[in-house]
C-alpha cells in the first residue's frame, strides 16, 4: 500500500504528507480506542471489586488504571501531533474549511479537558477519596471519551459528506457549523467507530490474559481478567456487524465510487455479484469467489439492482481499488471471525457457566486483540483511501490541500523515526507494567496488598 500511495502521488511532498498523516492517525487511533474503552472496563472491574469485596477485581482495576495512565499520556501526545499536522500538512484544507469543521473540534477540546481533569483525579486520588466517590470520578472520563470520539469522527464524516456551507467565488460562505457536524455520514460512522473502540479494548485486554493462561496461569485472577473484557467485547460484536451493514448501505447510496472500489466493480450493471477475495488486474477482478447477484442484494435488497461501476467516473477520480477492496475484505472477515469467538464464549457460558474447555479457546482469545486492531485499521483504510482522490469528497482534491513548502519528505522521515522509537518504548513499558510486582497499593484498600504477588503474564 505504501508503494502504491507513493507512486500515485506525482509529487513527493504529497506522498510524504499522506503517509505521515496515515501513520500518525493509524497510531493514534489504537490509543484513542483504548482511551475510550479502558475507563469503562476498568470502572466495571472496580465496581465489581467494591460490591463483592473481591480482591481480584480490585487488583485488576488497579493494574488497568496504571496501564491507562501510560496509554492515556501516549494517546494524548499522539493526538496533539495530529492537531498540528492538520495545519502543517493540509494548510489549504484548514485555511478554507477550518471554520466549517471547527465546532466539533472545539467541543472535542472541552471533552479532552474533562477527560484529563478527571483522569488526574482518578489516577492520583485513589487514596484521597472514598471508594464510591472515586468510582464516580471515573464516570466523566467514560462520558468524555465517548463524546470525544463522536466529535472527531463527525469531522471525518464531514470530509465524506460535506454539508453546511456554500462556495461563492471561491470563498466559503453561509457556514452552518451544526449542519456540517450533523452531516449525513455522521450517524453510521460515529456509531461504528465507538463500537469499534469497545471491541478493540475488550478483545485487547482479554488477549493479555489469554496469553497468561496459555502460559499456565489459570487461577481466578487471570480468569477474571480474561472474562470481564471478553464478555464486554462479545456483547458489542453482534451490534457492530449490524452497524457495519448500515455503514455499507450508506456508502452504497452516498459514495458509489467508494463502493465500486470496495467491491471491485468496474462496469455499471444490474445483478452484480459479490466478490470475496480476489485482486484487480487490468480493470477486472480476478481470482475472486463470486456470489451471484450478491452485491445488488446486499446493497439495495434487490438482486437486480443496478450498481454503479468505476466506468462512470474518469480514471483520475478512482481510488486505489486493490487497497480499498482488500482492506474491506479484511475488516469484514475479521468481524465475522470475532463474532464466531463471541458466540463460542456465549454458548459455553449458557451451557456450563464456564469458559470453553478447548485449548483453542485461549489461543483464539489471544489473537483476538490483534484481530480487532487490524479490523479497525482496515476500516479506516476503506474510509480514507476510498475517499481518494478527494480530501473533501467532490469539493477539494487531496493534491490541492497539501502544504507546498519544500522538505515535507524529511518531516515524514523524522516523524516515522520518532514513532518507531515511541512504539518500542510503549510496548516495553507496558510489558514492564505487566510483569512488575508488587502492584501499587492504596492505604484504603489493604486487601489488595495481600494479593500483590500476582503477575499478569
Amino acid at each position, binding site marked *: 500500500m505504501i508503494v502504491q500511495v507513493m507512486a500515485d502521488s506525482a509529487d513527493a511532498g504529497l506522498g510524504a504528507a499522506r503517509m505521515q498523516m496515515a501513520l500518525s492517525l493509524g497510531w493514534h487511533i489504537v490509543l484513542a480506542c483504548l482511551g475510550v474503552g479502558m475507563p469503562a472496563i476498568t470502572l466495571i472491574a472496580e465496581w465489581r471489586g467494591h460490591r463483592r469485596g473481591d480482591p481480584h477485581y480490585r487488583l485488576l482495576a488497579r493494574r488497568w488504571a496504571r496501564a491507562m495512565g501510560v496509554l492515556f499520556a501516549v494517546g494524548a501526545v499522539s493526538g496533539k501531533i495530529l492537531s498540528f499536522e492538520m495545519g502543517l500538512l493540509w494548510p*489549504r484544507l484548514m485555511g478554507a474549511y477550518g471554520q466549517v469543521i471547527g465546532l466539533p473540534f472545539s467541543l472535542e477540546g472541552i471533552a479532552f479537558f474533562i477527560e484529563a481533569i478527571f483522569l488526574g483525579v482518578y489516577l492520583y486520588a485513589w487514596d484521597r477519596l472514598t471508594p464510591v466517590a472515586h468510582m464516580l470520578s471515573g464516570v466523566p472520563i467514560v462520558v468524555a471519551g465517548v463524546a470525544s470520539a463522536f466529535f472527531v469522527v463527525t469531522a471525518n464524516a464531514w470530509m465524506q459528506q460535506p454539508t453546511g456551507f456554500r462556495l461563492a467565488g471561491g470563498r466559503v460562505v453561509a457556514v452552518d457549523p451544526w449542519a456540517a457536524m450533523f452531516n449525513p455520514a455522521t450517524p453510521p460512522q460515529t456509531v461504528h467507530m465507538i463500537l469499534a473502540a469497545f471491541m478493540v479494548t475488550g478483545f485487547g485486554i482479554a488477549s493479555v490474559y489469554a496469553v497468561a493462561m496459555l502460559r499456565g496461569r489459570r487461577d481466578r485472577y487471570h480468569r477474571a481478567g480474561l472474562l470481564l473484557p471478553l464478555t464486554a467485547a462479545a456483547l458489542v460484536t453482534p451490534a457492530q456487524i449490524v452497524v457495519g451493514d448500515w455503514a455499507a448501505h450508506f456508502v452504497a447510496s452516498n459514495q458509489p465510487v467508494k463502493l465500486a472500489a470496495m467491491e471491485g466493480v468496474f462496469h455499471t450493471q444490474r445483478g452484480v455479484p459479490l466478490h470475496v477475495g480476489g485482486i484487480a488486474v487490468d480493470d477486472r477482478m480476478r481470482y475472486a469467489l463470486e456470489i451471484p447477484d450478491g452485491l445488488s442484494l446486499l446493497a439495495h435488497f434487490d438482486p437486480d439492482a443496478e450498481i454503479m461501476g468505476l466506468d462512470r467516473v474518469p480514471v483520475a477520480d478512482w481510488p486505489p481499488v486493490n487497497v480499498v477492496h482488500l482492506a474491506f475484505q479484511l475488516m469484514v472477515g475479521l468481524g465475522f471471525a470475532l463474532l464466531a469467538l463471541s458466540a463460542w464464549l456465549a454458548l459455553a457460558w449458557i451451557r456450563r457457566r464456564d469458559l470453553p474447555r478447548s485449548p483453542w479457546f485461549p489461543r483464539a482469545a489471544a489473537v483476538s486483540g490483534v484481530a480487532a486492531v487490524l479490523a479497525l485499521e482496515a476500516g479506516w483504510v476503506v474510509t480514507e483511501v476510498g475517499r481518494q482522490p478527494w480530501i473533501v469528497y467532490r469539493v477539494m482534491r487531496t493534491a490541492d490541500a497539501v502544504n507546498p513548502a519544500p522538505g515535507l519528505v524529511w518531516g515524514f522521515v523524522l516523524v516515522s523515526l520518532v514513532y518507531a522509537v515511541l512504539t518500542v518504548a510503549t510496548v516495553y513499558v507496558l510489558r514492564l507494567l505487566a510483569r512488575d510486582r508488587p502492584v501499587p497499593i492504596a492505604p484504603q484498600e489493604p486487601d489488595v496488598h495481600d494479593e500483590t504477588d500476582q503477575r499478569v503474564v
Partner: protein
Amino acid sequence: MPLAEVMIGVMWAGLTAYVLFAGADFGGGVWDLLSGGAASGRRRRELIEHSIGPVWEANHVWLIFVIVLMWTGIPGVFAAVASTLYIPLTLAALGIIARGAAFAFRKVSTELWQRRLFGAAFAFSSVATPFFLGTVAGAIASGRVPAGIAAGNVVSSWLNPTSAITGALAVGTAAYLAAVYLTRDAQRAGEDGLAEEFRRRALACGAVVGLLSAAGLLVLRADAPRLFAELTGGRALPLLALSVAAGLVSLALLWRRAYLAVRLTAALAVTGLLWGWGVGQYPDLLPGVTLEDAAATSSVLAATLGALAVGAVLLLPSLWWLYATFQRDRTGPPHERGDSALRNE
C-alpha cells in the same frame, strides 16, 4: 465586529493559561535537567514529578484549545502560520511527544537506567519545545509570516533575532514560573531545604528573564519597530509597565519568602508581557491582514463561542476541583505519603 474580538480575546486567554500552566510544566523539566546526578538530584526530581504528575495532562490541553480556536476563528492565519513555520512547529510537536511519553514512562519505571533514559528525554524536550514555540511567536511578532500558504521563507522566518530572543524568553519564563511554583510546593511538603533552593533559583532566573526581556525590547526596536512603538509609547505601554512592576514585586516577595503571593505576581508579570504583545499588534494579525479580514463567518464564531461558554460551566468547577484536590495541605514529605506507592518507588 465584536464577535471576532471576543473570539481572539478568548484565544489569547487560552494562550495565557497555556503559558502559565504548561509553561510551568516545561520549567519543571528544565529544573529536572539541572537537578544534578541521580542520587543528589533525587529529592528535587521527586518534588517536580509530584507537583506536575496529576495536572500536566490538563495543562497541555490549553495548547489544543488555542490551535483549534485558531483554525476555527482565523482559519487563513492558521494556514499561513502552519505552512510557513512548519519546521519549528514539527520540532515542537516532536518535543511534545517525547516529553509527555517520557514523563509517563519514567513514572512507572523502576530501574535506574530506565529512569535516567526517560528522564533525559523528558528534560531535554522540556527545553527544546518551549524554545521552538517561542521562535514561532517571534516569527509572528516580527511580521515574518505573510498571508498565504507557505508564502514566507521557511527558514529565515523563524531563524532571526526576534525569534531567537523570544525562544530564549520562553524557556526562561517557563523555568522561572516553575521555580516560583515549586518553592511553595516544597514548603507545603515540609521540604524547607528544597524550598530555599528553589527560591534562590527563582531569584536568579527572574533576574535573567528580566534582562532577556530588556534585550528583547532592543531587538524589537531594530527588528519590529511597529510593535516596539506600541509597547513603549502606545496602547500596550500600560501592560508592559504592569509586567515590569509585577516582575520587580515578585523579586521582592521571593526575597521575603512570601511564596504564595509571589505566585500571583509572577503570573501577572508573564500575563502583562503576553497581553502587551497582543494589544500592541492588534488589529493586525499578519502583515496586511487585520482581525476583521481573517475572522471566520459570524455563524461559526457564535456557535463556537456558545459551545465554549457551555463548556466553561462544566470545566471551571472541574479544574478548580482538580487543583484543589492536589493542593490541599498534607503532612509529611511526598515520598512518605501513601500515594507514593502509586508511583512505585
